[in-house]
């Protein structure tokens, strides 16, 4: 899951990037509104964390422009503005949620997960066949046995399961699992798919991640 953080205060941007990366998110940071909108319109983010008071385009304007471009990406405002009218104003500009500074990092994570839930009312538990992922505790179980995964492996598995029974192209996988600093060599996906298969194949009998030749991968509920 790839997140765009639009925040001009380097201290806040830094800990957000560190904390979210540890939670297996791919994080890009924009330090002003113009760059924020530019990134949001060129990349396919799963979520945008938007500060209100930033140089260049204000957070509100960035939010409006993103919505104008027909993007439905979940947007969470992060701001020190704390009156009810500010909250209403922010939500009316098209934001999905609003969190006031200073915030608890745990609360921010929980709110991010709420926004990333798919329409079927999924909770923090994702499952694919005998595999279950707990996004809250960052644990993966295969046939009730815990499997240790690295951050990237976890992120890749999460993306595939969220899009299960759909073909995930290499480009889309790169876009959603790796951040902007990653050069577009998609062969790294094959390496990580291999790791995943190995780690999970040890305990499971059937192949659940199939290769779609020349296109990408698909996770199937068997």
């Amino acid at each position, binding site marked *: 899951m790839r997140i765009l953080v639009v925040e001009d205060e380097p*201290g*806040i941007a830094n800990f957000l990037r560190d904390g979210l990366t*540890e939670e297996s998110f791919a994080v890009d940071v924009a330090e002003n509104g113009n760059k924020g909108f530019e990134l949001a319109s060129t990349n396919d983010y799963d979520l945008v964390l938007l500060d209100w008071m930033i140089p*260049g385009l204000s957070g509100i304007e960035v939010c409006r422009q993103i919505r104008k471009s027909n993007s439905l990406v979940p947007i969470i405002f992060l701001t*020190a503005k704390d009156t009810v009218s500010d909250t209403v104003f922010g939500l009316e500009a098209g934001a999905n949620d609003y969190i006031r*500074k*200073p915030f*608890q990092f745990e609360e921010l994570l929980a709110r991010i997960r709420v926004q990333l839930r798919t329409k079927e009312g999924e909770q923090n538990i994702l499952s694919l066949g005998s595999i279950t992922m707990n996004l809250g505790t960052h644990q993966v179980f295969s046939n009730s046995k815990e499997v240790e995964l690295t951050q990237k492996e976890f992120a890749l598995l999460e993306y595939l399961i969220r899009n299960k029974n759909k073909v995930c192209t290499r480009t889309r996988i790169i876009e959603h699992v790796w951040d902007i600093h990653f050069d577009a060599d998609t062969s790294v996906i094959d390496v990580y798919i291999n790791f995943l298969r190995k780690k999970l194949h040890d305990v499971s009998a059937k192949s659940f991640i199939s290769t779609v030749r020349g296109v990408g991968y698909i996770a199937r509920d068997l």
Partner: protein
Amino acid sequence: MQFNLRNRISFFYLVTTGILFGLVFFVIYFSVRETVYRHMDQDLDAESNEVEKNLVVLNDQFIITNAFEWNEREHGQIEVNPVFIQIVDTTGKVIKKTGNLLAGQLNFDYNLKSKIYFNSSLSGSPIRQVQLPIKNPLGTTLGYIVAAMPLEESSIVLQNLFVILMTTYWLVLFVLFYITRFIAGKSISPINKVIEISERITKENLDERIELPSHKDEIYKLTSTINNLLNRLEDAVLREKQFTSDASHELRTPLAVIKGTLEVLIRKPRSVEDYENKIKYCINEVDRMSTLIDQLLMLARSESGKITPVIGMIDLNKCVQSSIQRMWKYIDEKKLIVSFDDSKKNFVSADSSMTETILENILSNAVKYSPEGNEIQIKIDSINGKTVCKIKDFGIGMTHEHTLKIFDRFYRGDESRNFQVEGNGIGLAIVKKLADLQNISLEISSEVGKGTEFKIIF
């Protein structure tokens, strides 16, 4: 009694018109009375002259030569315009009188030696009377002709006139009082509106303004003056609000950074190096905060007048040098070259510690916005008898509109934000305050990409 403006206006108006109307009515009444009396007096004059013409005095005997005239109708009856004539001798004894006097007799006054008209009465009824001395050719008074006419009708006319005038007077005053009260009320109602709206305006709705009247009169002036006052007040309040909000934002941000960084840090066990880095980072943030708090306190003290400058002759060269020394760490870090010629002595009257703070803040800005290895020039000149200290950098510079706002509290140009230069935008606000306290003026000229020059004029 406390009169409001409306009643006061109508009262004064009423008193003035009351006096004027009184005068006019007085003139009307007395001129009418005079006219009436004059007409009567003319008639009496004609009658008495006629009697005198027809009177012959022979051996102290008064003889009427024209009996026909004496016995005229007006002398015989009392119903229609009677004229009473009576002839008396010098002792006041009635020698002869007209028939209409019947048993009565006209009053005679010994003291009246010449022809005088006066009001008197005949058996209870008012009359107008004249007394004409009868003289022989030698000028000796032999007796008097007393002529009179009833005043009754004229006095009724005059009395009616008086009553009418008096009634009208009070009626007019009464009506006028209410009319002026109404008009005064109407003309001061815009003032009431001004009062009503002004009373309603508090800190919460300071953006409300009083509607300007259509006529450019005094009320218009009053209203626009109050509106201007409100504009200035609103500006001040907004600036204060902005300051409070900026101050809380600036204080909260390092707190949020520290909190967030530490929260992320303790989520997982980490290497000692990681801990050290993050803790150092947090200490840095705490330092940033305490600098800000110190500066805010200094600003607050200088604004509330709690610190007063101790003005004396100070060595400006020494101040410049000590501020360079204090900034040396940062100057050295960026390998900047600071040029300053201290061969000439420069003494100015100012507060030395305040002047050092001013120099240090301006120098610190020059350092912040200068690219590595650049030059900063400090020069002290004498211009028009004033000592001017110039601090010039060749850094990023700023637009003219930014130079106008640079002394505002918490103002930071987009340039400084974009270049990620550390700072809180409070240093120059302090500089301005301290300069104001010592009557030092500041000038700034800057060009984007070329650099900035500050002039401190003592």
